[in-house]
């Protein structure tokens, strides 16, 4: 079933089409949700919520871009709403943290697995984690991030710089562990 027909069938509410769309995108979207949350369970909650929104609003997809991109945007927005509404994340989602995390302009090679990289990003404070994901992975500008998160552009920019610096420090540490592990257990 091509995308156009799949969407039309989903608009009609056909369960088999909805299942097919879910099967096609759920693994990728769980990966997206995983990056924004702190646990697999939360990631699944976000993904479920996101798919429900998708199925209820799929009539608004106008085939002006890729379906995957549209679904991804809804997932990201759902994840951010989840962070804002979930008490576990709210306290950690402050964007006015004055902690002086190091800022780095380095551009190190990222030589670890995607899942390990995602796990490291998830260890960042939620505010850093969110802004890093939105800027570095989703490709939003700081102006857009400011609008999405209700902060000003400068805050987004400085938070991102600190998130990046902290992440590079951790990645370098992780890379050293990789080398050691590789040496001990060839």
């Amino acid at each position, binding site marked *: 079933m091509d995308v156009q027909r799949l969407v039309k069938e989903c608009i009609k*509410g056909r369960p088999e089409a909805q299942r097919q769309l879910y099967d096609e995108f759920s*693994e990728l979207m769980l990966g997206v949700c995983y990056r924004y949350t702190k646990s697999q369970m939360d990631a699944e909650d976000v993904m479920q919520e996101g798919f429900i*929104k998708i199925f*209820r609003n799929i009539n608004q997809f106008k085939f002006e871009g890729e379906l995957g991109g549209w679904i991804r945007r*809804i997932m990201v*927005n759902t994840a951010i709403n989840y962070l804002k509404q979930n008490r576990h994340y709210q306290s950690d989602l402050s964007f006015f943290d004055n902690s002086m995390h190091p800022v780095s302009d380095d551009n190190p090679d990222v030589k670890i697995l995607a899942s390990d990289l995602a796990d490291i990003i998830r260890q960042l404070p939620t505010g850093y984690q969110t802004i890093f994901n939105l*800027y570095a992975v989703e490709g939003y500008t700081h102006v857009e991030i400011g609008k999405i998160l209700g902060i000003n552009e400068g805050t987004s920019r400085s938070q991102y710089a600190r998130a990046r610096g902290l992440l590079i420090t951790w990645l370098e540490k992780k890379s050293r562990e990789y080398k050691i592990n590789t040496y001990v257990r060839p």
Partner: protein
Amino acid sequence: MSDHKFEKQVRQKLNNLTLTPSASAWVNIEDRLRGHRRRAPFLWLPLLLAGMVAGGYLISHSGKSTLVPKTTLIENKAIGMSPLATKQKIISHKIIEKKTANDPFVQTPDTPFLIKNNKRHILSTEDQTISASDINNLPAPLQAESDNDRAAELLPAGLPEIGGIQEIPVKMPVIAGEIPKININFGKGLLNNISSIVDKTGVPLKNVFILSKKSSGSKWSYAIDAYSGIVAVYDGRLASFHKPQVEDIAITPSQTAIAGIYAPQYKPSTISPGLAFSVGAAVKRELSRRFSVSIGLNYLQLNTRSRVGERVNSSNVVNNGTRGYLYVQSYYRLDPTENAEYKNRYHFIEVPLTLHTRINSGEKLPVYWNAGVVMSRLLNSSSLHFDGTTGVYYKNDRLLNQTQAGVSTGFSFVLFNKTSYPLWIGPSARSNISTILKKDISASKHFVTLGLNVKLFLKNNVAQ
């Protein structure tokens, strides 16, 4: 998007990160989707209407004898009896309640009874003299279907005085155990058949009528008033009747008059129709046989729907049009990818004044054409306005027209007209003359509603 090498590598790795969801994830999604679909909008509406109709029917038929074969037994010699006003011996009756599982409507010829609340009440017999004043103590008139036309054939040449008794030989067929209720409306009174004279075998011999003083019948009657339907926002343009836009408060009427002074950066959501309902009480006054007028006091709720982004619980400054800038504590974003449905809810208290004009003469199903005016006062609202300069939806009831005037029209079909609880039901349409927003904000949008109006009258003012 950053062009740094580090960001590129991160993006490449994470964009393709996949994880396998648990099996329960799809089950949960499916449950919520199907559950959502089951909650069909307005499903309760026909149920409510059916309930009201059934309730009205039950009320109108409860607490009365459903079939009262009000039978006065006389001795065989009584066939040629003198008028009842002159004292004479007849057999009267007392009511003894007896529960029975048998069909209560089947009469046993020599055991007179009446039916009340589906129970058979056996009538005991004892000798007693009866006078005109005793007539009032006889059981209530029969509740069988009226048959005024056939009864007219039975009318005597000279009518009795008010309170006088009139015996009329049985001319019309009488269903075993059932004497039709006859209420004949005369200029000076109302002729009711109150009893039938039967012989000991139960064969009807004569009908006994009494001419009672015609009840003046209060010209006032009271009703429970309910309305349910849909409401839409009409901006004066038929082309956009189904989808007018949420008002951009930043554009004032004076600005729109000068082209180019303001170019909104963001486009607001459209407004979809929603549920409208009202409930309240009304009082009706008969002006003549054809015209009546009613006035009511109702609570009215109008709901429209628009699509907004996420709610933000933090302060913001919005462009409040001619009112300057407004500091809001919370607002909704404009986000095309995250546009959840938002219900703009308007709570009103309203006073409808309606003229009812009867357009047919049939008694079984009178039909009225209703036309009137409605004044309503806004109590509260959750409606959102839009600031096109920042792309923000926000709440500010002060922008709304607090008092609304409207005109209404519709038809009412009167069910159960012969009972004490007639039910008026029919389509009704209304258009508000007043705009939703104050005139310096917007002079175009107003509410129009279309739905079903139901009035259950608690007291029929038609003399029975």
